């Protein structure tokens, strides 16, 4: 360039690359998030209308605030280079453990379980945000040991690093989140490239553990889970035949699942709309949180449920896409962790409401009411956005990513 013409050149030149670099977010991922957020508000509006008679919009208003906060957090996180988080892996892990222990120590009970700490304006459910913290810490840990990935030592350490917080979370008791933690660990090992032998051994171990916890343990008097948890887990195996309608405690898992199935089934092709009665009149317990899919299925039918499932499919496929396009292993692992979290929660939660999965108390990402869950999910998606943005910009800059 001519030094004589510096006045015009800088004006034009930065324009084109700036547009590329400013490509802020994965559009499809964002679309899925917005769609699910709107879906959540629409569903909750009808489902929670009668929960607090004096304030029918109580839940919707709060969920809208949570979604907005989470969306802002997501936008903020997408501007951040996730790579720097690798440096703080010990801090992150410590924060995870501390928050979980704090809940155990200071927590506030709900439904017979201590899962959250109540602050003046919101209650903080550590296990939800803990999922993201665990993904970051474990990913960083695996990247550090990238050269010893095929060693048994690595596999065992990763599992133990996940198992410790998981046990504390299960002790709260929040079985669902504990299972999510373990799923995340397994997924990270799987994506990081742990040997198939280790994975097979792990699968066998899981089978033995399930058998012990549900069958062998109680038989010899060792109760790893509380009886109601065991019952919830096995309820879907022996459904409606023994459901006793009148006088059944609404916390009876079989009752819950049966009523949920009735709600969803009665939705039919296009939903019952204003005729819906199962959810608005309280036949389906927890229809604002764990059983929000029942509210959706009843009111909007196969059409509405299918649409939301399609949005989840989009969300998960985009997550996997971010996984493969990440500029480094850390990014791929974070994406894998978020994918594990989303897949586990969507399949287990939806499966639970339609009677093909045990009741484990996991939320439906973005749809279920709850600040911690919504914000944690959006933080995870914020990380995906960051990985996406970084991948786009790095490939734009270098065209290559260092791989193992």
């Amino acid at each position, binding site marked *: *360039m001519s030094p004589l013409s510096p006045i015009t*050149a*800088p004006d034009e*030149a*930065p324009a*084109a690359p*700036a547009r*590329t670099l400013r490509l802020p977010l994965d559009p499809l991922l964002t679309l899925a998030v917005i769609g699910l957020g709107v879906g959540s508000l629409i569903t909750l509006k009808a489902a929670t209308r*009668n929960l607090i008679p004096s304030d029918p919009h109580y839940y919707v208003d709060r969920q809208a605030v949570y979604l907005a906060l989470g969306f802002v957090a997501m936008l903020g996180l997408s501007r951040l280079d996730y790579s720097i988080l690798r440096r703080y892996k010990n801090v992150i892990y410590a924060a995870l453990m501390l928050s979980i222990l704090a809940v155990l120590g200071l927590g506030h009970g709900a439904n017979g379980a201590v899962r959250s700490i109540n602050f003046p304006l919101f209650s903080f459910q550590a296990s939800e945000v803990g999922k993201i913290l665990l993904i970051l810490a474990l990913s960083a840990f695996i990247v550090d040991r990238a050269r010893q990935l095929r060693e048994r030592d690595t596999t065992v350490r990763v599992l133990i690093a996940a198992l410790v917080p998981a046990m504390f979370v299960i002790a709260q008791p929040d079985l669902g989140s504990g299972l999510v933690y373990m799923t995340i660990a397994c*997924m990270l090992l*799987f*994506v990081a*490239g742990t040997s198939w032998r280790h994975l097979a051994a792990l699968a066998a171990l899981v089978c033995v553990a399930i058998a012990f916890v549900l069958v062998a343990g109680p038989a010899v008097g060792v109760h790893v889970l509380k009886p109601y948890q065991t019952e919830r887990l096995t309820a879907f195996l022996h459904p409606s035949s023994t459901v006793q309608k009148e006088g059944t405690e*609404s916390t009876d898992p079989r009752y819950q699942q049966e009523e949920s*199935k*009735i*709600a*969803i*089934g*009665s*939705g*039919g*092709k296009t939903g*019952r709309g*204003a005729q819906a*009665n*199962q959810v*608005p*009149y*309280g*036949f389906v317990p927890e229809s604002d949180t764990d059983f929000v899919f029942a509210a959706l*299925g009843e009111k909007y039918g*196969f059409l509405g*449920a*299918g649409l939301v*499932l399609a949005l989840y*499919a989009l969300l998960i*496929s985009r997550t*996997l896409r971010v*996984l*493969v*396009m990440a*500029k480094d292993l850390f990014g*791929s692992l974070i994406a*894998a962790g978020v*994918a594990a979290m989303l*897949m586990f929660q969507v*399949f287990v939660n939806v*499966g639970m409401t*339609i*009677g*093909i999965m045990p009741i484990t108390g996991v939320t439906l990402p973005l749809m279920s009411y709850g600040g911690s869950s919504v914000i944690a999910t959006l933080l995870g998606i914020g990380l995906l956005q960051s990985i996406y943005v970084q*991948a*786009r910009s790095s*490939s*734009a800059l270098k*065209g*290559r990513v260092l*791989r*193992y």
Partner: protein
Amino acid sequence: MSAIEPVKPRDPRVPVSPQLALRVAIIGGVAMVMFGVIFFRLWYLQVLSGEQYVAQANANGARHLPIAAPRGQILDREGQPIVGSTVTNAVQIVPDALPPGLSTQVQEYQASLAKAEVARRAAVTRLAGYEAALGRVRRPTSAQRLELRRLRRATLPPLVAVPPLPRSAARLEQLFRRLGHVIRLSARTIDERVVEGITVTPYAHVTIKTDAGRGALTVLGERSAEFPGVAQEPVSIREYPDGEMAAQLVGYVGQLNESELKLRAFHGVEQGTIVGQAGLEYYYDHYLRGVPGEQRIAVNAEGQPVPSKLLPIAPHAGHTLQTTLDLGLQKASENAMKEGMEHARAGGKPAIAGAFVALDPLNGEVLAMGSSPSFDPNKFAKPLTPAEYSALTGRNGEEPGRLTDLADEGAYPTGSTFKPITAMAALEAGVITPSEGLGAGQCIFVSSEPFCNAGHAEYGNATLVEALKESSDTYFFTVGKLANEHGGEVIQRKARELGVGEPTGIDLPSEFAGVIPSRKWLAEQNALESKCEQARHGRRCYIVGEPEQPWTVGYNMDLAVGQGELLTDPLQMAVAYSTLANAYRNGGNGTVVTPHIGKQIDEPTGSLLQTLKFPSRHVHLNYEDLSLVMEGIHQAATAQGGTSTQVWTGWNQAEDPVYGKTGTAERAGHVEQSWYMCYLGNAQRPIVIAVTVEEGGFGAETAAPIARLIASQWYGKPKKFVPGSSATR
């Protein structure tokens, strides 16, 4: 900075290692399979079985409360109301809104109710066994009756006491006490009604008082905050404006109870619906009750009502029943009964009960009919205490209670009012000739047993007409004896032919069939007795007085004068006299009418829906013989020496000729029962009147004057109570 931007690939795709590609593909595959499973399951639930789940969801969320249909009116023949409905504000309890404590009580009550029901079912089985052992005994002995009554009582719907309120329900008890203070009921009564109401119709409001009065209602309305769970609702109450008038005929209404649910008459009617329980209310319930509407209430999982857009289904009002009764005649007849019975009591006769029937002899329309003592059906419109109920059902079951319609359920010998039937039978069969003189002397002896005239009167040899006029017993004893010798049971056959000893087919829920003693009947009774004795290991059952006694002429002689084993009721006698009367008007071609009270069914709006038809049976009577019999009973009411001539003094016989026969039935252990049967042969408005007064004395003394009062009303004549002095049977 931007100047050094080198290349800008359109697609920022990065190379991926085969290892990662494989594993991500596996993850994607798992996700696809899971989504597939979920979609398939959703399709199955929502599209394939959607309707089934909709039904389940609806059953979950809705409770159906019946809206009572306004019950149809019952009118007299001119369209004047006999029974109507009024709308009042009932005080109701809304169980859900009450202070806590009721549910434990309800559960206890239902548990003891279930226990009592088990005991009741056992009693039903035992009763069936006992009845089968007894066979078709018509007149069981007192011991048997006692046992039967005990068993029957055990099969009645059990009276289960409501357990006391639990101590924890102090607030509830206080509320009931305060409420009771306002509506003048004890807290205990309110509690009982609420608990019983919840048991019959769960979820519905329980009516505890329908006549609280305006003052109490205003208090409750103004201070509703102090009475949680107390509501007011307009309810339709069955109203019987004339109280005791024709009460047994009209019947009464009550909630359909569990044992009635199985009856075919109430097929498809919900428990707790107000239905007819007796009389016309019961017989025509199908028309009167209408179709209840339905309030559909959406409820939440706790069973509490929630706002919904479910529209109520409006009830259809019941149809109107127009009867053949003449309200004026009915009222006058009941007053006449009252006057007659009072007169008898003043004369030293107990006159404990009575009944009357006024029939149109041409078509069987019941113009008036009643039984005394009576009851007020309005009492049944409100909750009734067991004590009140047993007061209505009779003196310990020994005697028929006030609820029994003696006109068609009484079982009486008729005394001499039966004689025209005997005469007709004997003449037609040729047992006697009309001019033959019979029955001289005070008594007739059959194997040294005397059969005497009342007061050992001496009539000499009388012809048929004279015998009917004077009511000579010796004449008719002789006829009975001759008929027995003649064979073929001519009297029995004629009685049945004319309508005695058979159910009349009246449109009321129950009527007495009647007993006419005959050889076959006696053989049956003897067979029953021996069977019963076998079952009781040789002990007597007293179905017959003496076991294994053969038929004797005495049975026939007693029957000929309406005594002995004959049992019938005023309605059957009215049918028989109607048959004689219409045959007499029609040259011997008679009609055995079916007496009926229902005339037509109208829409609630008043337009005719259906005219009620009742079959009748034709008989041919020999006109010459019939004329003689009618002449006999006409003279009995008009000629010098006639048994009821005195009663009809001053009556315009040319216009409304009276054909009347007195009767004085003798029942062991009772004062004579007064009977009078008459037919007034007015060309346009004929009427047959039957009157009987238990323990009322001679026929001319009590029953005949009552009949005259009834006839006076029918023809618009001045009413005068004229007792006769004839002391004949």
